[in-house]
């Protein structure tokens, strides 16, 4: 059974979002996604300070199999990006929901939150893949 933390929101394209009370959010790719992609060799994170819109390609995760785009689940300004990934891209494999996070956002449009999947809905997406 896939590991899907219940406090996170998801996109069908396998990104997760952790929402905070102060209007910011943290984004990464799911454990299922990293498992499908295999060993990470390179992660390209978005530039701090840049504005992204929901659905934008804003990061690239490159594994031994493929380089895949990561879409921003929400619109906002990029506050931080995970600099540890430059040296240790494998953090995405070992801790997809923790140390392998990609970037944080200050949200500009909270109405977009309704579009996200909850853990149960995402579990169905994963089940279809398996």
């Amino acid at each position, binding site marked *: 059974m896939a590991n899907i933390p219940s406090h996170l929101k998801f996109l069908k394209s396998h990104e997760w979002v952790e929402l905070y009370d102060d209007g910011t959010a943290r984004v990464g790719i799911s454990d299922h996604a990293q498992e499908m992609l295999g060993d990470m*060799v*390179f992660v*390209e994170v978005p*530039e701090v300070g840049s504005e992204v819109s929901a659905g934008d390609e804003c990061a690239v995760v*490159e*594994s*031994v*199999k*493929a*380089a895949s*785009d990561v879409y921003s689940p929400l619109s906002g300004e990029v506050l931080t990006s995970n600099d540890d990934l430059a040296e240790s891209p494998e953090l995405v494999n070992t801790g997809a929901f923790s140390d392998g996070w990609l970037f944080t956002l200050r949200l500009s449009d909270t109405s977009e939150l309704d579009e996200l999947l909850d853990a149960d809905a995402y579990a169905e997406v994963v089940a279809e893949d398996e």
Partner: protein
Amino acid sequence: MPFIPHTQDDVQEMLAAIGVDSIETLFDEIPAELRVKGLPDIAAGMNEMAVSRMMAERAAKDAGALNFIGAGAYEHHIPAAVWDIATRGEFYSAYTPYQAEASQGTLQVLYEFQTMMASLNGLDVSNASLYDGASALAEAVLMAVRAHRKSKSKRILMPTTVNPVYRQVVDAIVRNQGITLVDVPYCAEEGRVLAGALKHFEGDDYTALVIPQPNFFGVLEDVDALTDWAHANNTLVIAVVNPTSLALLTPPGEWGEEGADIACGEGQPLGIPLSSGGPNFGFMCCKQKYVRQLPGRIIGRTVDLEGKPGFTLTLQAREQHIRRSKATSNICTNQGLMVTASTIYMSLMGPEGLEQVGAASLQNTAVLADKLCAIDGVDKAFTGAGFHEVVLSLTKPTAEVLAALAEQGIHGGFDLSQDYPELENALLVCATETKTAADLARYTDALASVFAA
């Protein structure tokens, strides 16, 4: 591997499998008005005997002519061994094989090629070649835009001393991708870009500066000053270089304080015959930190499960068979056979041989320029020091002079008047190591006779 075409039965079976009547049906979605009804301007087929006769007659028109044209494609001596080895069955393919790792010999050649190019350019990594010099420069521009994300303008400083054909190709490839080429003028006396002229561009955002070395006029650019100016202004540096010249000149990786970020160019001078304009090949090198933006294939050296050394395609994750439209490049057609020939050429010449070729070409051009400029009506157009090409300024129309020389069996150079109308009656002349003292004297006498007339 034999090429076995499909039989009619194979074709019918495949059509039946997808439920289509004829191959023609597969093209239904192309509107009828866009489809060509025939090719009326193309002659009917000829048999082998007739073709051989026609080609022999055409080839005879060129035979024996002394060639002093460079302008991007250069006549160099090619040791006979180069093409004897390159055309062996084991090497004779233009492409990296589809089961690449099964062809260790081909991969090793490409790996050696990359090592040589990286060394010549003084940069960390090289790809396994590109289509030609012009498209390599276009790829370098696209790469600079990908690599320099902080620069939002997507504007590229492009000196007008870059080969005009390259500038056209680059513009055609990048124009519709939101990238703008901004002309950088050259100094009319020196025939090169002055670092001072770049002041005009300071304070604005430019993604990259292209620096040709030598430039299209054969003149050496002030590469250290230009490179340092670019880096001080948060602009990447793309070098477009002649590989033969690198045996003598400072490699791009050592220009200025930090070196050029990307270097590219035309590989033809390294063992590829002129043969009416192609095939050629392009090359590209860069600093290690940009390797993931480098287009095309890269061969790596590794060890297998038993610890034995072997070669493999590396960093494939961004290539077109995996990334499709998002690949780093979809026009990096591999010129594998040309690269094989150039690798053999470089191995046979060695660093010393390549240096001798460069030095002899430089010397011949300098001697020829002095001889020609002694003729009344012929003068050097620029004061800047050069490599193996020089621009002459004539008192007669260039086209007329070239026609008169052609009648004496001499291809006298490249007419610059179309690309550089501001240079009146200008002629670009090149004398490589293939020219003897007698050849230079023959050209001088012929030109003197044209001006005496």
